[in-house]
């Protein structure tokens, strides 16, 4: 068997391997968050978003809004959006003011360190 054949066989093997794949992966998707999505918490000081890969803090945006009466919403000003110095997969969002009781919506647009973008939204509730 020539070396050429062996290499072809190797390549075919990789094609066959497609039949046995399981796993979940994507460009920086949100793995967990604090306060957790759809949870009820009392007076959180900050939001921590943990992504599946490192994110670029300068190009990652997080918008927090509070559901007002009816359909209205109030945009919550943020003091800082920065990655955890020890782990660039964790994004820490600090609101300018403590979060008052109410229903909050968090919309995030992340840029991962490999320059890909992803986005998502989740909600949580602050109780008195």
């Amino acid at each position: 068997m020539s070396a050429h054949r062996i290499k072809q066989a190797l390549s075919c093997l990789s094609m066959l391997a497609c039949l046995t794949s399981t796993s979940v992966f994507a460009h920086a998707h949100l793995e967990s968050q604090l306060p957790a999505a759809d949870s009820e918490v009392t007076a959180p000081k900050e939001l921590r978003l943990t992504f599946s890969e490192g994110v670029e803090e300068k190009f990652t945006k997080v918008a927090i809004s509070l559901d007002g009466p009816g359909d209205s919403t109030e945009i919550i000003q943020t003091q800082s959006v920065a990655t955890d110095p020890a782990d660039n997969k964790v994004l820490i969002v600090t609101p300018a003011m403590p979060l008052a009781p109410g229903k909050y919506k968090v919309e995030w647009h992340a840029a991962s360190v490999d320059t890909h973008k992803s986005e998502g939204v989740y909600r949580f509730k602050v109780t008195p």
Partner: protein
Amino acid sequence: MHDGLIACRFLHFGAVLLMFGIVLFRRVLFASPLRAFEAGPVRRTVDTVLTWLAALALVSAVAWLMLTAANLADGWGDAIDPQTLALVLGNTFFGHVWIVHLALSALAFGISLRASTLPPVLPVLINILLLLTLAPVGHGAMFDGGRGLLLVLNQMLHLIGVATWLGGLAMLALLLGARSEVDMPAILRRFSGIGYVLVALIVVTGLINVRALSGALWPDPAFSEFGLVLAVKTALVLCMLALAGLNRQLSRAAELRLPWLRASVLLECLFGAAALGAVSLLGTLPPMLA
């Protein structure tokens, strides 16, 4: 912006890979069989090709930065906004790698302009560094710590294998096309020997890449998005392998059939270019759909 980035990746990878492969072929792998060629007139053609490739590499590197800035900041205006560009260069992982890569691109272009007066080790060194600084950008950056480092090292080996193969092919095409006083059968036989090592390196490092990125030996879904493009790329590389086998047979024949060889090498180059196009697309697709 995405289409622009795909085109940019294709042009930039193409230019850098070819440049590295051609320089390595000329200065290291085949330095002695090419001695007659280096003294002849055809070397000028190769020098001119290298200068254009270096120019293309530099321009596409700048364009890549501008498109990345526009893509990250969500606006075409950001492609030429000095503040955004500075933010990308100074504050992102891509930017830090790109500062070095851009400097090397400029250096490579400068060197290509006066290649004949400089010691040959200089272009070899700069082109190696230029190629290696392409490894950390892209999907390789998605892991941190030791695993990320290993993946980047693996990507470096993959790039060296691919660049040596593609650049070598381009050089073969040039030599076959021009009438020069070189021992063509000997060069062909030697390249095909080196080719085996290269293909083994490319296949093994490629498999490691796919395994690491997709968490499996082949991405799931197997034949849509990332998996489909990867399948196309693999098919193209298999075509290249078949042609490489044909080349070997042709170069062993008692009488060298140049037209056949020329056609076969050129076709292999085309498959290589197509495979590179597929790779450029791969870099922008998520390896796994969550």
